[in-house]
């Protein structure tokens, strides 16, 4: 088993230039701001003394590559600058908000699978028939809805008209969190499900047509057992990479959904920073989210290999 994970060090090496690129883009964004970056970063708290201090610490009087190295040096020391609106280091604020967003994303992923697996199975069981068409309609509608609007509609339906769920917030206890996060997670789950359903459906169809399913049937496997042991596991493999790619999309969506439901995660932090014109905060959130996506990409490859004994990324990475 372990020799198949030989590719992991290679994969980590591959990720290094991406991480550098990500930091460079985040660094460079400050230079796209109109005017002096130090002035823009300080916003309305800019005093000549503060601007001068920031200019030296960012090295704005030095060439761009040196500024970038200074930025990297600050990053390595965990210094992401100070938030303008909170008057606190960005890193602490981001780290406080991160678990909330992670919980929301995982919750949404689970709900998305709970929605997608049965619908994909329903559609794949008889391609081209009525259930298949209904599922297709669902996916078409699902991908055509702005996520934040779906969230507002669910609030309208399940929090305002029928008062089952809270309008927003995060709650205090662990159980509270799950209750408060249900609607936002459901929103994100529904938004993600069209992609998952489409991938699962087509791989289920090809699995159902394969010879080993015929063999399993002839040995007497049927119903739920056939589905779980033989169909789902094999059909899940290509879907894992689709889910991995879309987790980034899910995180992106979570930023706006958190704003809609007033959940104190990275998204609210980012949206509030937009309203407060708090650039260091936006930079910090963008950086963390991008790093998260890079990590998820690596994890996806690992899960992919572990799920499917036939996949061997080692040879590919070594080549």
């Amino acid at each position, binding site marked *: 088993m372990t020799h198949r994970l030989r590719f992991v060090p290679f994969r980590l090496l591959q990720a290094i*230039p*991406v991480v550098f*690129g*990500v930091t460079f*883009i985040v660094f460079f*964004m*400050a230079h*796209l*701001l*109109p005017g002096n970056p130090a002035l823009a970063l300080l916003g309305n708290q800019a005093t000549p003394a503060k601007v001068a201090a920031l200019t030296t610490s960012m090295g704005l009087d030095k060439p761009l590559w040196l500024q970038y190295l200074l930025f990297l040096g600050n990053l390595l020391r965990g210094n992401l600058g100070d938030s303008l609106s909170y008057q606190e280091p960005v890193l602490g604020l981001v780290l406080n908000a991160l678990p909330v967003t992670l919980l929301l994303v995982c919750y949404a992923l689970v709900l998305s699978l709970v929605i997608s697996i049965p619908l994909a199975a329903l559609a794949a069981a008889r391609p081209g028939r009525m259930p298949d068409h209904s599922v297709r309609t669902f996916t*078409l*509608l699902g*991908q*055509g*809805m*702005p*996520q*934040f*609007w*779906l969230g*507002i*509609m669910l*609030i*309208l339906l399940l929090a*305002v008209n029928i008062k089952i769920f809270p309008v927003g917030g995060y709650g205090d206890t662990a159980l509270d969190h799950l209750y408060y996060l249900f609607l936002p997670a459901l929103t994100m789950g529904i938004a993600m499900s069209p992609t998952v359903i489409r991938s699962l459906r*087509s791989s289920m*169809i090809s699995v159902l047509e394969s010879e080993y399913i015929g063999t399993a049937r002839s040995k007497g496997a049927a119903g739920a057992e056939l589905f779980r042991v033989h169909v789902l596991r094999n059909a899940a493999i290509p879907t894992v990479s689709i889910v991995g790619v879309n987790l*980034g*999309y899910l*995180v*992106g*969506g979570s*930023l*706006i959904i958190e*704003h809609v439901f007033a959940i104190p995660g990275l998204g609210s932090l*980012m*949206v509030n920073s*937009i*309203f407060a014109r708090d*650039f260091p905060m*936006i*930079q910090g*959130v*963008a950086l963390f*989210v*991008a*790093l998260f*996506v*890079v990590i998820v*990409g690596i994890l996806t490859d690992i899960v992919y290999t572990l799920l499917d004994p036939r996949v061997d990324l080692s040879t590919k990475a070594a080549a």
Partner: protein
Amino acid sequence: MTTPTAALVAFKQRRAKTRSIKAWYRNGTLMSGIAIVGALVLIAVFAPVIAPYDPIEQHLSDALQPPNWQHLLGTDKFGRDVLSRLIWGARVDLRIGFLAVLIPFVFGSILGGIAGYFGGWLDTVIMRIVDIFFAFPFYVIVIALVFVLGSGEASIYLAIAAVSWVSYARIVRGEVLVAKQQDYVAAARLGGFSNARILVRHIGPNVLSQAIIYGMSDIVMDIMAIVTLGYLGLGIEPPTAEWGGMIADGQEFITTLWQQATIPGLAVVVTSLGLSLLGDGISDLISPERRK
């Protein structure tokens, strides 16, 4: 001898029937897509004629009316007619959605074509840059860029172009890698044509169909992005009618005037549904063998 023949005839008839059903369904997809998108484009183009009121002019004394015969969808907090704003919003959202696809399509296809055709270090460099941009979730980088670049349509185009070229580059590169192994490319090389000519004249037309198909779904993504930016108050400046901004305005009054947040969202759903159907239809026309 009659039985096998009869069976064959029946089989052929059945096949012909399923094929015609499929053909109808394909056409149906394309036709309904054309109908929906066509209707929306007409509404957008003739907005000044169709809209019953000015979308921007404020009538504070008529603010926050529920739907009635003067204002079919009611009025917002500034007394502006919601229906008129909805119609004018189609103009903004559709125009930006369609235009925003063009730059990344051209730019990404060219870079992807070069990377795939020449390979080597050029390919490595371009694809590493693509990987970097893929690490940022679409919304995060679009929101951050529009924030940095400031409000206005130009920022939206730039921000979307900066992120979405990577998808075209990936698609076109993959197609070029396959196409350059084909005999016709070898023949063109033997004919002594320049690389640029082979890439543009010979490979180009054969690989762009996938990018076009992707482009159709990309319009939907872009409209989602524009609406999301509008909802967050970024991009399009306030008095201009835009669906995302209208949803944000309506959300304030969700408990009393629920239709104000609901209907602009429905407009987005109908638009993306029409574009998806159109895209599927076009994809069937261009490459029917790819459909599963």
